């Protein structure tokens, strides 16, 4: 690789590697909106995995300060895929039957 020979080089290199640790930095931060996708067998069979991936994709695309991760069964198997949105210092909101349109809606409303 080209050597770092100026502040600008350092900045551009930093921007190219920042993504590597982004998931960790977000996990460490307090006060972020957390989106938990239930990923039990019933959830996965109802399409939770593609919803989870779609969340990650959109959060990345819109550069939102949102942490997305998977959790286990939330117990509402009839409404899978279910998604819990945990807002800092507030009660969580749970969404059922989440599809891509709903993901967009959730991120529109709670992502920032």
């Amino acid at each position: 690789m080209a050597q770092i020979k100026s502040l600008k080089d350092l900045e551009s290199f930093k921007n190219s590697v920042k993504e590597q640790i982004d998931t960790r930095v977000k996990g460490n931060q307090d006060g972020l909106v957390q989106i938990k996708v239930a990923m039990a067998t019933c959830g996965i069979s109802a399409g939770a995995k593609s919803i989870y991936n779609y969340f990650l994709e959109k959060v990345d695309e819109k550069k939102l300060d949102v942490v997305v991760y998977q959790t286990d069964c939330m117990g509402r198997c009839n409404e899978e895929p279910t998604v819990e949105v945990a807002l800092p210092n507030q009660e969580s909101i749970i969404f059922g039957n989440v599809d891509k349109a709903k993901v967009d809606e959730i991120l529109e409303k709670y992502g920032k």
Partner: protein
Amino acid sequence: MAKFKMHILVCGGTGCTASKSQEIADRLKSNLLEKGLENEVQVILTGCFGFCEKGPIVKIMPDNTFYTEVKPEDAQEIIEEHIIKGRKVTRLLYTDPDKKEHVADAKHMGFYKKQLRIALRNCGFIDPENIGEYIACDGYAAVAKCLTEMTPEQVINEIKLSGLRGRGGGGFPTGMKWEIASKNHADQKYVVCNADEGDPGAFMDRSILEGDPHSIIEAMTINGYAIGATKGLVYIRAEYPLAIHRLQVAIAQAREYGVLGNNLFGTDFNFDIELRYGAGAFVCGEETALIHSMEGKRGEPTFKPPFPAQSGYLQKPTNVNNVETYANIPIIILKGANWFNKIGTEKSKGTKVFALAGQINNVGLIEVPMGITLREVIYEIGGGIKGGRQFKAVQTGGPSGGCLTEKHLDTPIDYDNLIAAGSMMGSGGMVVMDETSCMVAIAKFYLEFTCEESCGKCSPCRIGNKRMLEILDKITKGNGTMEDLENLKNLAGVIKDTALCGLGQTSPNPILSTLTNFWDEYVEHVQDKKCRAGACKSLMRYVIDQSVCVGCTACARNCPVNAIQGEKKTPHTINLELCIKCGTCIEKCKFNAISIQ
């Protein structure tokens, strides 16, 4: 490069490596490969998380799940349950000792709640063998800022304003040290990182080097720029192979990326770092002895002045700082002195890393703001005394420090308060003791260490410490007199006043502080021939309670020296002449008939 959805951080510190963390990481990786998840989930070995008591540690990000005491066999379950199905592996979660509940999120663990990680900011967070991750966490931005936007004087002033003091033990103001070195002119100056960590039980420097080696390289470069030195040397113990390896990898990467070498950041400033290995002599942590050792001479201290800042390595002006001190430098430059000097107490700014050890629930490495109380450290972060026993004392400052007691528990910890209490900060060893520790024996342990490590150059240390050790030995064997205690006090005072270097001058501290705080215990050993902690074997007597003993013969059959006599079904007795006080009889007795007096 694809972005990883999840990161699995496996502790790669020395402690967890010894409990197979490398194998855990390998198995996690192969399991991911098997499931085709290698591009979605990343496994990295980090530096120490600090929670060594429950190692090996595996942390999953971004959900902060903290798994403890993980075994290589658990790798498959972690992947299949947590990574694929989002189901936490409950049996591996940390259990809160008070509430008896599993704590999934590391942020909610008592151990981490009160900590403030500045020097350890990247330990347990980044891959120490990847310069990219360090740079992604603002690495090398501080040195870039210094070289391109600040004059050496401004750098020194910033460090002075921050109030940072040496973390190796002495607590000398770092900015002032740099200023003195910068004002001495010479054709060549040197910057030395003191990584000769030697206090029993202390491992903060090792953990920083293992977990965040680039921060030390960056700080030394800043130091070089500030004082006008182009060469840096790290004096590191050869017993720290992992730290040496990580440092070597980091130096090679730094050179490859051009952040170490010539014309750094397009300026005409050059700086490079070499390693020097120490053989683990305690006295070589003293800066003059360290410099002699680096020059290939015997590791013996010399009288100051001249200070290393005037005439150090190869008689050139040399600035020596400790690893932890350096770890604070880059972040002070980036966040500013006024951010740093708001943390801590009036005269001790910032944080301090402590190695918690001894009879405490959460043994490990912690970083706390100066001014926190011992009570908070021991009971909130440390989780209290093991087995619910009574707190007795805490030893800080290693062999140069002293013991603090119950009455000091609410004293805010900083350099000056610890000295006023008869101990010192030292490099940050903190050994917690409960009622089963004998303070005379503890003083003897530390003195044995200093006697072993004395270089022998000056007589107070070489001969005086030896005499003190003999007196302590006499006392613990039950042969001490009150005159011995007086002699001990006088001798300690003389050694303190007359020894050549820091090692000798501080070696009587463990004795002086235990004499002050635990005088009764010394007198008990001398007059009553009794050790209340039951630690001094010579003073112990095993006795069978004749009214409780049923004559089952279990003790007599298991006694390794046949010291127990008695007929079947009649009470037994112990022949104290033969008894070696091994404790087997107490262990074997089902009727609690045997006790120590």
